[in-house]
């Protein structure tokens, strides 16, 4: 379903070498004495791009930096270095432009805390339109009604407050608010993680329908491999602030190459008691702290393939196949033995 796979076309979103550090300097006097500030290197040199009409997923576990990446793209956190270009324009120039809401919007994980508890559904959804054009209140409401209909909420919801909605309905309102300006790119940060299974499935299908209807591009942040597989064209796998592997979703999930991707996919439970892979997973340890990440490859302390080199020198993302990249010294060796190390 990719509208653009040709490389000459300009991507909609282009993130290059992005780094976001959070200062956790401790006390002022200590930092004066030692002249050292501690940082949480949440995102550390990440490049991601999203084409027009494309759905890109960023997957990883907690603390890998996937949400920080999304927030940096939206301008909610300052970046330390790197560039973010949207439709070829630098993000900084977008900041004060009137049409920024028409370019990029976001849906957050918690459907509850991202809604104003005192605002009616119709006001929440029509608010992004204020200031976009010379529309009056009636026009804005008319558009809000249309979009609410598109997300499956009929007119009886217009005057409701968030507390009168279920979790799934709240997330529909959040989605309606994000798409009401018909933005080019919608960032979805764990859009279904707070929802029950049956509601999650409804929302996933809704996202696909809306993408078609409004020709949206999605950047999806998720910890759930099967959500990424269902929605996305391309997938980036992040670990401790770095991208370790990326490529077409199908290929990455069917034939993962980086040892971390292999472990991540093997650990995701499948609803089939005949294939009890979960109990065979051999991965040890937990996600490292990004304040003092391990030197070299950040995955090496947990990696069954790690050798001397991995603990001293960080591997770079290298091409490993059509449109595929991974950051590991032993991709060839792993390709020959895949499936034996973890599962």
């Amino acid at each position: 379903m990719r509208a653009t796979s040709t490389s000459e076309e300009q991507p909609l979103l282009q993130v290059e070498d992005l780094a976001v550090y959070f200062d956790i300097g401790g006390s002022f006097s200590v930092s004066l004495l030692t002249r050292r500030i501690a940082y949480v290197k949440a995102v550390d040199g990440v490049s991601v791009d999203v084409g027009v009409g494309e759905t890109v997923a960023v997957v990883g576990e907690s603390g890998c930096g996937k949400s920080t990446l999304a927030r940096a793209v939206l301008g909610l956190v300052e970046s330390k270095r790197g560039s973010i270009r949207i439709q070829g324009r630098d993000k900084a120039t977008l900041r004060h432009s009137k049409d920024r809401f028409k370019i990029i919007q976001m849906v957050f994980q918690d459907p509850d805390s991202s809604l104003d508890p005192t605002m009616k559904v119709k006001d929440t959804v029509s608010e992004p339109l204020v200031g976009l054009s010379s529309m009056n209140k009636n026009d804005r409401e008319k558009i809000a009604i249309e979009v609410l209909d598109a997300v499956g909420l009929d007119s009886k919801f217009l005057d409701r407050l968030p507390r009168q909605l279920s979790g799934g309905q709240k997330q529909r309102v959040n989605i309606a608010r994000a798409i009401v300006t018909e933005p080019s790119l919608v960032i979805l940060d764990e859009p279904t993680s707070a929802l029950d299974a049956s509601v999650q499935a409804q929302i996933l299908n809704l996202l696909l329908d809306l993408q078609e209807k409004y020709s949206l591009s999605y950047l999806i942040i998720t910890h759930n491999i099967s959500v990424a597989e269902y929605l996305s064209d391309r997938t980036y796998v992040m670990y401790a602030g770095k991208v370790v592997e990326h490529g077409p979703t199908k290929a990455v999930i069917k034939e993962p190459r980086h040892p971390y991707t292999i472990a991540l996919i093997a650990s995701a439970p499948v609803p089939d008691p005949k294939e009890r892979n979960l109990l065979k997973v051999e991965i040890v340890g937990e996600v490292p702290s990004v304040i003092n990440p391990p030197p070299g490859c950040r995955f090496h302390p947990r990696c069954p393939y790690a050798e001397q080199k991995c603990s001293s020198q960080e591997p770079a993302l290298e091409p490993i196949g059509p449109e595929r990249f991974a950051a590991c010294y032993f991709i060839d060796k792993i390709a020959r033995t895949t499936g034996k190390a973890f599962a």
Partner: protein
Amino acid sequence: MQDKSVLDVNELSVAYELKTGAVRAVDNVSMSIRSHELVAAVGESGCGKTTLGLSIIGLLPSPPAKYISGEVNFKGKNLLSLPPDELRLHRGTEIAMIFQEPMTSLNPVFRIGDQIQEAIRLRNSRGKGSMGNERNKRGPLSRTGASATRKQIIDVLNLVRIPDPDRIANRYPFELSGGMRQRVMIGMSLAQKPSLLIADEPTTALDVTTQAQVLKLMRGLMEDVDTSILLITHDLAVASQVADRTAVMYAGQIVEDGDVLDLFSSPLHPYTQGLLACIPSGSKEGMKLRPIQGSTPDLRSIPAGCKFAPRCLYATKRCEAAKPELRVKEGSHRVACYLHE
């Protein structure tokens, strides 16, 4: 075949009495757990799975909770008829429970080792048969006693495969990761060598690679410490990976249960089928998901007949009029649906 059952829940009904009316959170549930068996109770939020767990171990806040009817037979004794003092003897030693967020279950101001020690001491004092002595025992330990206890603490940490247990024992809960904390909780609850462990969403707050490790550990420990597990989870996939039997709950009732292989290879109840169809597998180019329409019912205004009828594709007049009973379909596979009579 181990047929000795550890737990028999018999037609248990539990309600919460609220200002706006009574809500039946557990409605006529019958289930049993045999020794060395891992049974999963699966369902969406509000289906009563947590209330079921809490009512077995007797931790329901009352009021507002109220036992309406039924029995919880644990090793042949009806726990609901025991006086509170006697019930306390079982709780934590014979039946243990762990929860979703291990941080809230651990005391933040005590070292891990001290908290494990308390659990061990409790077991020892109860082993001698009286509750009253427990407090008197809290004096300073003799030197030999101290080193023996230290060894027991390390044993517990070793049991749950915590690396470098000597160092971890001196840490505070906030210094450990979520996965480590949950291991400590599992260790503490199993230190008592309970016959039944109720695990309420034990891995929901954990990352997938950590979840895999913790589930594998729990499954492995069942043999080592001779226990059965009731795993409460919202995740059908997790149940399919670790459980021997699975019970699917909806609006307070078990709608289907059976051997995990039967239940997943031929799910009978439309709700179970729907839940399985909701799990994304494969890409959108393959098959689109067929979600269950609507949302979980408000327990205050429950339909008279089958509770799932308003969302069911196969619902008939009969389903709306009268509630189908949970009946054996084949072997141990039970389902509450008129389609399978």
